[in-house]
C-alpha cells in the first residue's frame, strides 16, 4: 500500500464502484435506496446515480428474491451487476438465486458463461442494531462452491478488493463491517486492485499467529500492539481478505514459523469459519502446531443492550487477554 491521503471506508467503497463503472460500461448497480439522495442507509453511494444515470444505477422495490435473481440473469447475458442487499441479515432472502443459480452456472454450463456479480452488504455487530441487523452472513455461504466471499479490513483493502470483485468473473459476496464505515486511513495507490483469495500478513511476528478478517483485523492489530508493548509477545496478524477461497497456504506458512494460532471470529464457534480454518490447518500442519484456539462469540443471537453487546463481541482487549491467558506463559518474554 503506497502513501496517500486519508480515505474513509465508505468513500473507498464509493470510489471503487465509480472507478469500475467508468472503466467498464457493462457494470450496473442497483438495490434498495442506494440511488436516493442519501446513497443508502450508510451513506455509501450518494451521487452515483447522478453520475451514471438511471439506466445503470437504480433503486429497486423491497424484493430480495427479485434483486438477486435479476442480477444473476443480467450477469449471464452481458452485464456486470453490483447489487446491495442492505444488511447481511437479509441475505437469507437472497440466498436461493445465489447458491442455486449464480454459484453453479459456470460449472453446470460447462463453462459456457461465467457470472460476474457482486453482492454488497453491511454486516457485523457493535452498532446496537440488535439481533437481526448485526449478523455476518459469511458462514451461511462459505460452504457453497462457486462463490467468492471477500471481507475487507480497512479503507485501502475495501477499495482494492471491491475493484477486484467487480472485475472478477465469478459471483462475489462482499462484506462491509458497519463499524468500519467511518474509519479513515491511508488511501491505496491509484488504480490498485488486490487479489481475491490471497491473505496478507498485516503485521509480522514470531510468537503466534492471529488470523482474522474484516473488523477482526484492526482489532487483532490493536491487540498485537498491546501484547508487544505490555507483554513482549510478538503476534503475527494474518488478514484473510477472502473467506472463500481460503488462503490456507498463507496461514500454514505463518504457523510453520510461529507454531501457535488463534483465529478470531465475530460469530459462534460452531459452524463458524474460524473453526473450519483451524480444522484445515490441523489437517495440513498438525506437526507444526503447539497450540491452536478460537476466540468467538457465545452461541446466542447478538443482543441489543449496550452492556450485553459489548460483552458479546470480541474486541482488541478480549483478543489480547485470550493470548495472554492461553499463551502468555509459554511465549511471553
Amino acid at each position: 500500500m503506497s502513501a496517500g491521503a486519508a480515505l474513509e471506508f465508505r468513500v473507498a467503497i464509493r470510489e471503487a464502484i465509480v472507478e469500475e463503472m467508468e472503466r467498464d460500461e457493462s457494470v450496473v448497480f442497483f438495490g434498495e435506496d442506494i440511488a436516493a439522495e442519501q446513497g443508502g442507509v450508510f451513506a455509501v453511494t450518494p451521487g452515483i446515480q447522478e453520475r451514471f444515470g438511471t439506466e445503470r444505477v437504480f433503486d429497486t422495490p423491497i424484493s430480495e428474491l427479485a434483486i438477486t435473481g435479476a442480477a444473476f440473469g443480467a450477469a449471464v447475458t452481458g452485464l456486470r451487476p453490483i447489487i446491495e442487499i442492505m444488511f447481511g441479515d437479509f441475505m437469507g432472502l437472497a440466498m436461493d438465486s445465489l447458491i442455486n443459480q449464480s454459484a453453479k452456472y459456470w460449472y453446470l454450463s460447462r463453462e459456457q458463461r461465467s457470472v460476474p456479480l457482486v453482492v454488497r452488504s453491511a454486516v457485523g455487530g457493535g452498532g446496537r442494531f440488535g439481533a437481526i441487523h448485526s449478523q455476518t452472513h459469511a458462514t451461511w455461504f462459505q460452504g457453497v462452491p462457486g462463490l467468492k466471499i471477500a471481507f475487507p479490513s480497512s479503507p485501502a483493502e475495501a477499495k482494492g478488493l471491491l475493484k477486484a470483485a467487480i472485475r472478477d468473473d465469478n459471483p462475489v459476496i462482499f462484506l462491509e463491517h458497519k463499524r468500519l464505515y467511518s474509519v479513515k486511513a491511508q488511501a491505496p495507490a491509484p488504480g490498485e486492485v488486490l487479489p481475491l483469495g490471497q491473505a496478507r500478513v498485516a503485521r509480522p511476528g514470531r510468537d503466534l499467529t492471529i488470523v482474522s478478517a474484516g473488523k477482526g483485523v484492526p482489532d487483532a492489530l490493536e491487540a498485537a500492539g498491546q501484547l508487544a508493548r505490555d507483554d513482549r509477545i510478538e503476534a503475527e496478524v494474518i488478514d484473510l481478505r477472502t473467506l472463500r477461497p481460503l488462503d490456507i497456504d498463507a496461514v500454514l506458512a505463518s504457523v510453520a514459523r510461529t507454531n501457535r494460532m488463534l483465529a478470531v471470529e465475530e460469530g459462534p464457534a460452531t459452524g463458524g469459519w474460524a473453526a473450519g480454518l483451524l480444522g484445515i490447518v490441523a489437517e495440513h500442519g498438525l506437526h507444526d502446531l503447539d497450540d491452536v484456539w478460537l476466540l468467538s462469540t457465545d452461541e446466542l443471537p447478538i443482543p441489543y443492550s449496550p452492556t450485553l453487546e459489548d460483552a458479546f463481541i470480541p474486541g482488541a482487549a478480549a483478543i489480547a487477554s485470550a493470548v495472554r491467558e492461553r499463551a502468555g506463559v509459554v511465549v511471553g518474554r
Partner: protein
Amino acid sequence: MTVDEQIVTEAPAAYLERYGLMLLIRLFETEMQRLFLKGEVHGTTHLSAGQEAVPVGVCSALAPDDYLAGTYRGHGHALAKGTHPDALLAEMLGRVTGVCGGRAGSMNVIDAEHGLVGCFGIVGGSIAAATGAALAAKGQGRVAVAMFGDGATNHGYFHECLNFAQVLALPVVFVCENNFYGEFTPMLKVTAGGDIAGRAAAYGIPASVVDGNDLWAVREAAVEAVARARSGGGPTLLECQTYRHHGHSKADPAKYRPPEEVERWLARDPLGVAKARLAELGVSEQELSEVEETTRARMEQAVQSALAAAYPDPAGETATEFAP
C-alpha cells in the same frame, strides 16, 4: 348488532380512551427522539408519529388474547396491543426491566403476554408471523393481525402469505400502513400498478382503502375485518393511508418529501382529527385535558422508571441457547 351499529352506538368515552392511547404513542415517540439525541436510545429507531390511528383503531377491534405481529416501526403496535409503556421504553433504553430484558431493542420487541407475537425487523416478516399465528388462532377462536408498510407489499412474503392465508381461509387481517414511502423511496416509484388494496383481488381477498388518520374509519374497517376472520370468512386486506411525521429512521431528515405534501398531512394529524371528532360527539374540553394529563403523567412515569432501571449485567445473564 351489525358492525355499523356497534361503531355508532358506542359511547364517546371509549373513543376518548382510544384518543388517550394515540396520544400515549405520540408522546412515546417524542420521548424516543429526545432520548435518542441524549444517547439513551442506541443504534437506530423508527418512529411512528403521525400513524397512531392505525394501530389504535385496529387493536380496538381485537380481544386481548388475539394476536398482533408488528414491525420495526412498532412502538405504536406494541402500545396499542397492551404492552406497558414502562417495559417498552426500558427495552428501548436497553435496560434490564425492558419487556425483553434489553436483549431485543427497538426493532424486535416481543410481548407474548399481551398477544404481541413480535415486532419484526425483516420487511414482510410480520405478515408471515401473523399468518402462522392465524393457523393456531383458528383452533382457539382467535384472530391474528399483521401490520406492515407499503414497501412490504412488493415482497415475496406478502404474496405467498396472502395466497396461503386465503387458501386455508385463515382468521387473519392484513393491515398495510401505507405511508407512501419505504425508506427514502416513494411508494409509487417501486409499486407497479400503484394500488395496494387492489392487489388483494389477485387472491380473491376482500380489501378496502381506509383513511388511516381517522381513528373511526380505521376502527370501523377493522371491526368488520375481524368479525369476518373470526366467523370463518377468511382474510381481509386493509390499506390504511397515513403518513409518518419523521424520517424513516433516526438518521433520516426526510428531505426527499415535498414540503406541500408534508404540510398537507400535518394538517390532518390523526390526533387533531380525533380531537375535533370528539368535540363533535360532545366530549368537553375538560374531559379531553384530563385524559391528556393522565397520559402525560403515565409517559413521564415510564421515562422515570426506565431511566432509573439498571443495564443488564452480562455476568449475571443466564441466557441459554435452547429451551430446555
